[in-house]
């Protein structure tokens, strides 16, 4: 199953190149250049994984992460941090990110983390679907 990934970073030259590399590896990628834009996009379609830059103007990565998870707690968000920003990466994980990766991101490492996050996303979707079906059964007394 093709993973749908939302890449969020204000550096357009970065998202263009990384998106092309991810697509060449079989992912379906869309990009957003700001936190508010990304928040709009997650309300319009489902993304299996969101790759989110920590340092962005206007709304930083942590604030964007919090708002994303407030909208849907099951979203799988991977944070991109600056080099040597382990502390900030840990803070992002404490705030609900599934993991973090330091820039410059090594593509195969990133792909591995995306694959793991996608598996979790699929499991959560299946669990939610099972719960919905079971609720329908209960409601109808089956």
């Amino acid at each position, binding site marked *: 199953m093709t993973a749908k990934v939302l890449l969020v970073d204000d550096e357009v*030259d970065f998202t263009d*190149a990384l998106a092309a590399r991810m697509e060449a590896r079989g992912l379906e990628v869309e990009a957003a250049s700001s936190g508010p834009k990304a928040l709009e996009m997650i309300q319009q379609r489902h993304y299996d994984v969101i790759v989110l830059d920590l340092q962005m103007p206007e709304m930083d990565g942590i604030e964007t992460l919090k708002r994303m998870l407030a909208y849907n707690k099951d979203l799988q968000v991977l944070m991109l941090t600056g080099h040597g920003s382990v502390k900030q990466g840990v803070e992002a994980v404490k705030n609900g990110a599934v993991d973090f990766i330091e820039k*410059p991101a090594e*593509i195969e490492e990133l792909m591995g983390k995306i694959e793991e996050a996608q598996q979790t996303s699929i499991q959560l979707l299946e669990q939610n679907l099972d719960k919905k079906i079971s609720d329908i059964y209960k409601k109808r007394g089956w």
Partner: protein
Amino acid sequence: MNDSNDNNAVHEQSLRFIGALTASFSHELNNVVSIVDQNAGLLSDLIAGARNGRPITEERLEKVAAAIQRQTERGLGLIRRINKFAHSTDDPRTRFDLGETLGNLASLCTRLCDMKKVALVRELPESPVTIDNSPFLIQMLVFRMLTRALARVNAGDKITLELDANGGGPAILLQATNGFAEPSEEERSIESALAKLLNAQVESDDRSNRILLPALVE
């Protein structure tokens, strides 16, 4: 505070100032390197694809080359600016162009302002404004005031950095749409210690900070 305490406090704050600027610089340079790295990776991917029969388009190559060129220029600009800043510590007192020094500091602070969606407008004279003073301490004082302005800004605000060399001594004026955060007692005493070291006068009101520096004596 006595002079010895003042000097210790200024020394400590100098290190913080250098730390704040270099942290911002290194973060931006890391972004530049990351972009070049991804584009180099993309070129490798394209070559690998071509070996497997997927032709590389001229348009794709041009796009990658343009991105690398843009980022190389951005990186070189950053390096030039931080190098100029680093050399401002060479001499405790020297003859230098204040307009150029403030312009360089403003460029180094652009990212900090961008992160808050604030425009840092420079109104600096084109002709040199030569003074004999400490370029490092002047930048430190301006940066502290800028930091206090950034603590109060809203997205879309404007901060203006102006240099007026028409009076006796040159005057640096920093104005912010939303004013400046009130300095703590410690901040106030460091700013006045800096002013003393620079032989400068500082005038402040709600929306502006003015640093009056001594004119060059030939």
